[in-house]
């Protein structure tokens, strides 16, 4: 049996967050929550246990719900506010970080790269199908030896007449082995100062290989792959024309990080709601666990961090929808909310004790997932350095 935490009205009343979220966004959230209750939560323990997820089917479902690239304008995308998109990420990640990752990679990374930097032909070819979930995208930046320092990437794109020839390897690529299209970042040899360029690579190209990475203990309900390119020949117009240099991929990462600011708190909320329900029903020494001071101290601290995290997320949402949000500001959210979400998950686990490690409850799944969320799209340390540089002006990356 899968235990699902229902919305905790006491937590909602304490947070008062509903008053900061407009009616359409609340409807959007309850729609996603209902979809998750019907189609995701009952299956997630098995997907996580087996390390198998029907990513392409889910993409089509999310396409129907309008969640893929929902914050992008035109080309079949939803044109939502950033806050709406963030709140959608919040509800998706309340189900599972791996599910939210699927949507983030499609919308914030692959589609955003094409939408921001692509040619009109690239946009018309890919975006409508990707918004509908008929085509799945992935985003190749990280390499086996280059994570926080992507500028050192070894993947090379060489000019050969009008064509480009791609060689190299990308690692930890969500959706990589099930995608139809990969946005791949590579060093070019065309002599420009900003040598890094993005390429739109159909995954059925000769020389493309995506191998799923198994034996991982986190994001098991998500497809993670290693991509390799062997003399992969691309036409000249496969390059993303509108950007060169690391600014391209980094600006996409800022989009994904924004979703994570909301998403991580979704996972945290699910853990907190589960812990609350458990503490109320579980009796210890003849009394409900919720009645003990030590439990209440834990629950109170978790709730405080959850409310603060959500306020921060909504603040960043308002900035992004208004005057604009800086990458440094997004880093504040990513650093805080991932750090606090995993702390909440761990505390929830102690309230559930042994039951906390069972997939019958969502807590250990969230906790393990958040280990990845804590370090992907910029580790906590990278975000500390970004914030440190914003405060001091000194670049301490090396």
């Amino acid at each position, binding site marked *: 049996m899968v235990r699902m935490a*229902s919305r905790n009205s006491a937590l909602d009343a304490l947070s008062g967050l509903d008053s900061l979220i407009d009616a*359409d966004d609340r*409807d959007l959230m309850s*729609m996603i929550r209902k979809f998750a209750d019907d189609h995701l939560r009952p299956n997630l323990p098995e997907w996580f246990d087996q390390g198998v997820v029907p990513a392409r089917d889910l993409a089509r479902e999310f396409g*129907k*719900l*309008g969640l893929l690239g929902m914050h992008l304008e035109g080309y079949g995308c*939803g044109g*939502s506010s950033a806050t709406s998109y963030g709140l959608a990420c919040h509800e998706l990640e309340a189900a599972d970080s791996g599910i939210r990752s699927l949507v983030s990679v499609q919308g914030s990374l692959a589609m955003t790269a094409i939408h921001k930097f692509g040619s009109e032909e690239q946009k018309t070819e890919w975006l409508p199908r990707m918004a509908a979930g008929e085509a799945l995208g992935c985003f190749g930046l990280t390499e086996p030896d280059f994570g926080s320092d992507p500028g050192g990437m070894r993947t090379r794109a060489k000019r050969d007449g009008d064509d480009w020839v791609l060689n190299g390897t990308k690692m930890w690529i969500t959706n990589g082995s099930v995608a139809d299209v990969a946005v791949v970042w590579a060093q070019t040899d065309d002599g420009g100062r900003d040598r890094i360029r993005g390429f739109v690579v159909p995954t059925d190209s000769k020389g493309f290989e995506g191998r799923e990475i198994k034996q991982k203990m986190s994001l098991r309900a998500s497809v993670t792959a290693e991509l390799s390119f062997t003399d992969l020949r691309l036409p000249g117009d496969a390059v993303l024309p509108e950007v060169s240099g690391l600014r391209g991929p980094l600006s996409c990462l800022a989009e994904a990080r924004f979703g994570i600011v909301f998403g991580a708190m979704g996972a945290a909320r699910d853990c907190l709601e589960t812990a609350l329900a458990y503490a109320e029903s579980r009796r210890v020494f003849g009394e409900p666990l919720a009645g003990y001071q030590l439990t209440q101290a834990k629950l109170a601290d978790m709730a405080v961090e959850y409310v603060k995290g959500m306020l921060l997320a909504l603040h960043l949402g308002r900035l992004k929808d208004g005057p604009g949000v800086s990458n440094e500001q997004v880093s504040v959210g990513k650093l805080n909310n991932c750090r606090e979400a995993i702390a909440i998950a761990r505390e929830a686990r102690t309230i559930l004790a042994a039951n906390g490690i069972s997939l019958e409850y969502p807590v250990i799944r969230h906790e393990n997932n958040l280990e990845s969320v804590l370090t992907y799209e910029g580790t906590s340390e990278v975000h500390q350095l970004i914030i440190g540089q914003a405060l001091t002006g000194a670049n301490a990356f090396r």
Partner: protein
Amino acid sequence: MNIVVCVKYVPDAQSDRTFSDDKTTDRAGVDGLLSELDEYAVEEALKLVEAGEGEVTVVTIGPDEAAEAVKKALQMGADKGVHISDDAIHGSDAVATSLLLAEAIKKIGQPDLILTGMGSTDGLMNIVPTMVAERLGLPAVTLVSSLEVNGSTVTGRRDGDTASETIEASLPALVSVTDQTNEPRYPSFKGIMAAKKKPVETWSLGDLGVDAGQVGLNNAWVQVESFEARPPREQGQVVTDEGDGGTKLAEFLSTHKFV
């Protein structure tokens, strides 16, 4: 074809539902929503219209917050909504409800098809659809698990315990659908945004030409007299097999009409 779907705003069946002081449904203490059984009727209407042409109008009766049920149906894809709201309607029974719905449907303009759910998840009287059809002089095809429209007729399948009936009626007609009919869609993000621009009219008793003396708690033919929580389950009966276990078991099953 033009379709009217009658929907109801009900207290969430997942929460602790109760009655108010006047023994009508308590709406203050619980969240309300579009009755889940009505989602099947909305879905069926959307599928029929999407396969051809026409529009789907949803109509509901209830206090201010019942507009949420109309909104949900519009978010799913219905074209327009009617919300019948009047303080005098509070406490109305099935007879009055069917009168208001019938008058509203006349005012909307005779549709080709009226769709309803199999019942509401709160009242569970399951009689309103037939009453509406009777008042409008239309055939009622109730409790179908699938339906098909061919030209000027509608055909539905009603699954019973021992047989499935195929029922045909000429249009216009009223059809109530069960929860086996389809899988209702979720409102999409675009649907949620589009619903804001769809027309919703709010009608009072006066708009429908219905007298306050025909509706409301005081004029209801059926009222709740008393209510009590279901008693806790009693402990099961243990049958000790002393050679006659089979007989005792058979007796138990037949006295409780299980066989």
